[in-house]
């Protein structure tokens, strides 16, 4: 079945947030973000910006009727800075004006004085200072200490993976409009409409049933519009709450890249032990996750790193510990793989190092250690594994023997250009680890003429959930 949206997508007729027809009286918002990564706000002067023609009002934390808190897992993230700022771009004020141009011009007139505090961007330094988001988590199976004593080969090292910008081509944004009895309807470019509704309710002090969150579709999310989509929707709703007028805010690319979190960078230490047959007998890893200034989804990302710390291999003795470290970067967040890639990369680095030191192809070690049915993961689950047949099929399908020969010949004949081949088995757990989330409901209307509508909380962001619902 083809993507049912491809008709309107290719004709340019699909509706994204910025394509929603404007309601008369719509106002436009823009966020003033902290110019410093860490400090104490000494003085905030909004007067010049407020006096600009076309500026309707500028909101700060003082205008929040409910709680100034949007942390989903850990309540550690204010919507608007109060006394301190914790990352460069942290929202301090929300300007609402007659036009987008005026709102942005007003941002330049806001004066802020901040007494700087030490800025930490390195997660290992944060850990040394005890700046952890949650207590360390350890996954353990067997006894690594005992196992290492029996290993023929032991290798240690460090692996680094950096951050990554989601760069959904549609930037973050929201559009709020007033209803009756303080109700507010918000269009949000979010992967998590419920998260938006829940936090909006807490911030505005309005019960959830009066807040309607509608998502038409997303121009890309990739995890970057999970918890990170929430603040923009609440800012618009805050404006609507006070002004009783529609308020819209689509971030420009610079604002989006500056103020939103990325993939969590990791710095990790590993120690791997193999026996004479290249079986991995013991593996230890310490993961230092750079969470940024607030928890966001980092604790859940961290957990998934541990789940995937042995990738597609069976290792009988494992000790893996992960630290979620608080730094002065924008709160880092979900991104395709959700911590899994960061975990897998470390054991693959360990295998690569072992192979290099032993002068053998990494695939020799990889293949020997593939998970078999009946093997246990580090968290105790017994695997039903197709890893070995999958590997063998790849060898046949891609004619690896012949490919290797072609590569050897090419490399012998060329000095300036070289080719190589590597294998990368991946084991990835699907579904949520928070098991109540592994369910869905839909509201189906069958009309008198036989036509049907399906309403779900599933968000179409290119994965084809609209098409799936039609199946």
């Amino acid at each position, binding site marked *: 079945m083809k993507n049912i*949206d491809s008709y309107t997508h290719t004709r340019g007729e699909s509706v994204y947030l910025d394509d929603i027809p404007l309601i008369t009286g719509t106002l436009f918002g823009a966020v003033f973000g902290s110019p410093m990564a860490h400090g104490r706000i000494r003085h905030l002067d909004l007067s010049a910006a407020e006096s600009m023609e076309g500026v309707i009002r500028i909101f700060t934390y003082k205008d929040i009727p409910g709680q100034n808190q949007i942390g989903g897992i850990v309540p550690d993230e204010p919507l608007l800075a109060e006394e301190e700022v914790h990352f460069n771009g942290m929202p301090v004020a929300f300007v609402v004006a007659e036009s987008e141009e005026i709102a942005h011009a007003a941002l330049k007139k806001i004066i802020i004085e901040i007494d700087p505090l030490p800025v930490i961007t390195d997660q290992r330094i944060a850990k040394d200072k005890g700046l952890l988001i949650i207590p360390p988590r350890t996954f353990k199976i067997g006894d690594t200490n005992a196992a290492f004593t029996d290993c023929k080969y032991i290798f240690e090292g460090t692996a680094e993976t950096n951050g990554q910008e989601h*760069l959904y*081509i549609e930037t973050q944004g929201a559009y709020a409009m007033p209803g009756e009895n303080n109700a507010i309807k918000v269009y949000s470019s979010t992967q998590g409409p419920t998260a938006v509704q829940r936090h909006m309710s807490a911030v505005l002090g309005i019960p959830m049933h009066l807040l309607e969150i509608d998502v038409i579709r997303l121009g890309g999310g990739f995890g970057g519009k999970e918890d990170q989509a929430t603040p923009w929707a609440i800012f618009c709703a805050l404006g609507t709450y006070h002004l009783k007028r529609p308020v819209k805010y689509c971030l420009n690319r610079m604002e989006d890249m500056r103020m939103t979190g990325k993939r969590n960078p990791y710095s990790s230490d590993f120690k791997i032990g193999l026996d004479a047959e290249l079986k991995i007998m013991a593996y230890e890893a310490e993961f230092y996750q750079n969470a940024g200034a607030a928890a966001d989804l980092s604790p859940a990302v961290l957990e998934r790193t541990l789940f995937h710390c042995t990738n597609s291999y069976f290792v009988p003795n494992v000790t893996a510990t992960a630290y979620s470290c608080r730094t002065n970067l924008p709160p880092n967040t979900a991104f395709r793989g959700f911590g899994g890639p960061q975990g897998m990369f470390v054991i693959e680095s360990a295998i690569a190092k072992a192979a290099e030191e032993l002068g053998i192809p990494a695939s020799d070690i990889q293949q020997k250690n593939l998970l078999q049915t009946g093997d246990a993961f580090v968290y105790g689950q017994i695997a039903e594994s197709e890893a070995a047949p999958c590997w063998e099929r790849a060898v046949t399908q891609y004619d690896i023997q012949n490919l290797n020969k072609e590569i050897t010949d090419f490399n012998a004949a060329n000095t300036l250009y070289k080719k190589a081949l590597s294998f990368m088995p991946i084991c990835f757990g699907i579904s949520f680890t928070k098991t109540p989330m592994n369910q869905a409901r839909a509201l189906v209307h069958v009309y008198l003429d036989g036509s049907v509508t399906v309403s779900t909380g599933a968000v179409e962001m290119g994965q084809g959930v609209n098409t799936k619902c039609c199946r």
Partner: protein
Amino acid sequence: MIRFLLNQKEINTALPPGMLLLDFIRYRENLKGTKIGCREGDCGACTVLIGEIKEGKLFYAGATSCLMALGNAAGKHIVTVEGLNIDGLNAVQQAFADEGATQCGFCTPGFIVSLGGFCMSDNTPSYEKGIDSVNGNICRCTGYKSIERAVARINNLLSQRAAGSALQFAVDNNIIPGYFLNAEEDLRRLRAAIPEPATAVGNKVLGGGTDLYVQQHDTMPYEQIHFLFDRNELKGIRKEGKTGEIGAAATVTDIADSPVFKDFFPGLANYIRLISSTPIRNMATVGGNFTNASPIGDLTIFFLALDAQLTLMNGSDTRTIPLKSFYKGYKILDKQPGEIITKISFTLPGKEQLFNFEKVSKRTCLDIASVNTAILLTTEGHIISKANISAGGVGPIPLFLLKSSEWLTGKPVTTDIVEQLIQMIQSEISPISDARGTATYKRLLLAQLIKAHFISLFPHIALQQLTKLPA
């Protein structure tokens, strides 16, 4: 008043000529198929086609409307995705639907428009040219494989085209709507009604806008603009005896397509591939690249090695200076207010001369250089009788490496000489650490690129030892 054709509609507007075409299309004409992704010409979601009559023939090329002034649309046919729609899907759109080449759909209209331009070109179609037409479009969902298959499908269709009008074929095969067959006539009628553009009306000089609108997008709509892009006397690439002459408003695409450049620079296609993307090349002018004064301007580095001369004009006064004396300090030019570059001239490389351009950026294509360099060598047998070496990204201005170039004169091409040359160059540059690399890294990059020059230019000489990295 600015007059142009937008799809099938004649536009006659008094809006500011410095306003962005993108904003005009989306927010004035309400054509929401043209998307906003970055407003920097990077993502291609806002791509439109520009139809112009050149040398008596209507010709379409892609452009990013986020960097294009409304004033630069005057007298042209602007085509958005809506202007390519027919009843049902057109052949390009159908290929995307069939191959699953659209997921979230946000980037899709940009791809459809770029490929529409590919289908309207009279050049012999090929798969590679199809891929080149979308090299300025970013997709974050698909991983591009499905898009490549769609391009292959479109190319298969076009390969059935006999010699003759691409437009006629495209209309006959449901690739574009029928009104395109009248577009040339409509455009001629419109142009006949447009008075000659007034000379020097403003103090803000604008070429293609590809850099100016990135830097000053918020103020440009309010500027009094002196438009140069469509000034006929600033266009064209000519060969006058042994001299090459380029009008300052010639674009990078004009250079890439120029028979003169193709004749005298055998490696041209490889150099151009490294310079921005198709839509940006269609807009970016040579004069703009020079006056932007970026220390890593690709064309600047290219023409520095050719020891190009600039002709500058101020009213009726003209003067000619070497490009290498044009840069006085970071973004400081030997240029008076009101003075514009009109012409670039240089001696075309002769048979005994060798030219090469090298560039490294964080991404291979579509990116600003970390370091770039060009070289022009005159040889007598194995002896270099004259050398011009330029380098960008290694100082506050685009550098002509005078000392090193002079040192190389009279030397033979050997591994030792190249190593010594690299040492000499290290004393002539002063890179700084920034987002594009550390100073140490840039020094290393330039050293490697100098080796690449010699390896490319002297494939018959054994320079293999040069591939080794310094210890």
